[in-house]
């Protein structure tokens, strides 16, 4: 997956778990939590969707790596390079 693919994947997952998600003006370097008003239960859903769709196991201590769109891409790029 390219970096852009991963970005799309994350946005697709968020759109899937949240019918109200609004991506206009989203800053890739700012926390998703604040910009999209996500809570910890929503974050768990992102992790679980990644597991379901791409067999990725993300340990709880690494959840902070998913804070911003860019940090998601950086963290997931090596894990998804062969997918």
């Amino acid at each position, binding site marked *: 997956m390219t970096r852009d693919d991963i970005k799309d994947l994350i946005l697709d997952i968020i759109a899937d778990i949240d*019918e109200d998600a609004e991506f206009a003006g989203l800053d890739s370097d700012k926390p998703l939590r604040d910009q999209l008003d996500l*809570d910890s239960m929503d974050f*768990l*859903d992102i992790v679980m969707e990644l597991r379901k769709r791409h067999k990725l196991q993300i340990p709880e201590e690494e959840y902070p790596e998913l804070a911003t769109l860019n940090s998601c891409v950086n963290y997931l790029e090596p894990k998804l390079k062969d997918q």
Partner: protein
Amino acid sequence: MADYQLVIIGAGLSGLASGIRAARFGLKTLIVEQHSLPGGLNSYYYRHGFLLETGLHAMTNFAEVGDRHAPLNRLFRQLKLSRKKFATHQQLSSLIRFPEVSLRFSNDLALLEAEVEQQFPHCRAPFQKLVAAVREYDPFSPAPWRSARRFLAALIPDPLLVDMLLLPLMVYGNSEEHDMDLGQFVIMFQALFVEGFFRPHGTMKDFLTMLVEQYKGFGGELRYRSKVAGVRRQGDRVEGVELAGGEYVSCDTLLSTVGAPGTAALVGWPADAPKYEGQMSFVESISVLPAAQRAVLAADHTIIFYNSQQTLSYKRPPIAMNPDWGVICFPENFQDLPEQDFFQVRITNPANYAIWKQADPKEYQRLKADSEARTFARVSEIIGNYQQNRVYHDSFTPLTIERYTAKAQGAVYGSPIKIKDGLTPYRNLFMAGTDQGFLGIVGAMLSGVTIVNQRILMRS
């Protein structure tokens, strides 16, 4: 390999919500339910062509679409159900009625504030302090039991107002007698006074169907008429469930929604079971009247919480039932509900399980008739003659509740001791539901969601 990754005992609201979470993320999941319908305490049945709902007076925790952090909306997101497509009807207003003073409240806290100011002018500022304290308090962070009564007494200078506020909060979800845990008080205050009452546009049957379809849509399996006779265990792990028909189903993880005493009995867990047995049970009377009959009753509110004594005695009565305090609910009184042909009156009073339990069939029938007469004598003084032209009537006792809901001793709010983390002495056996400290329909479902999130999804 086990037959299922997860087996859930009970297709009540916490069981269904748990099942949806697990199945949504690919766990091979089976729910076993002893009855032929889902819902547990909040189910339905048919009599004489009427669809009658059990348990539900109103749902609590009302939230508008878009209020992302409200429990109701978080719950819908977690279950991947569309909140936008879920039509709701808010309450009209409700009443707390004591002998000399009454307080109205609605889903707008300002009404209760104004009522407090009018009836208890000296409590205006203290009540606002209480509201601020409730908003700041996090009831979900682990904390030892703390007396809500002591907390209120220090804040509110009028014991009558304290009792009036406690009546609805206790009767809609307190498993302890007399007092309640402060965290529980905060949860209930938010659920009833801040967020408020509503009902779904459809029936409880529609609501349950939506949940079952969601669960099955994610690949979850559900078996009705499958009573669990026992749980097989090995050391500190459970291995599977033995069904009453003799079949054995193995599982990696077992989630029980049948309460602490019920779970302990199934596993042979040498818990100190009696201390987990709730004392608070109720009798309920349902009367169905022609819609026109509503006009002759004092039936303008959605729910009336009444107490005919000066102080609130929230405890198991020493007699079969006590009509001195209770709840009168008019399930048709929600905003913009379509016109119905019939109008229901549902009345709930505290009852003593042990007295009903030891009655022989003849005595049981006599107690039932007596209970109805005592409820009528008290409630007709408040709302008028609700038996005139009645087309249907039914009543439930603590035994009915125990039989249909697996709640030990008919204790609708479960154990007075809450096991909030859902843990048991067995590493792969967890509990969800009323005994985890969440109450009401929204609370029971959030309990299922939370326990599956914390104990199963995050660990697997």
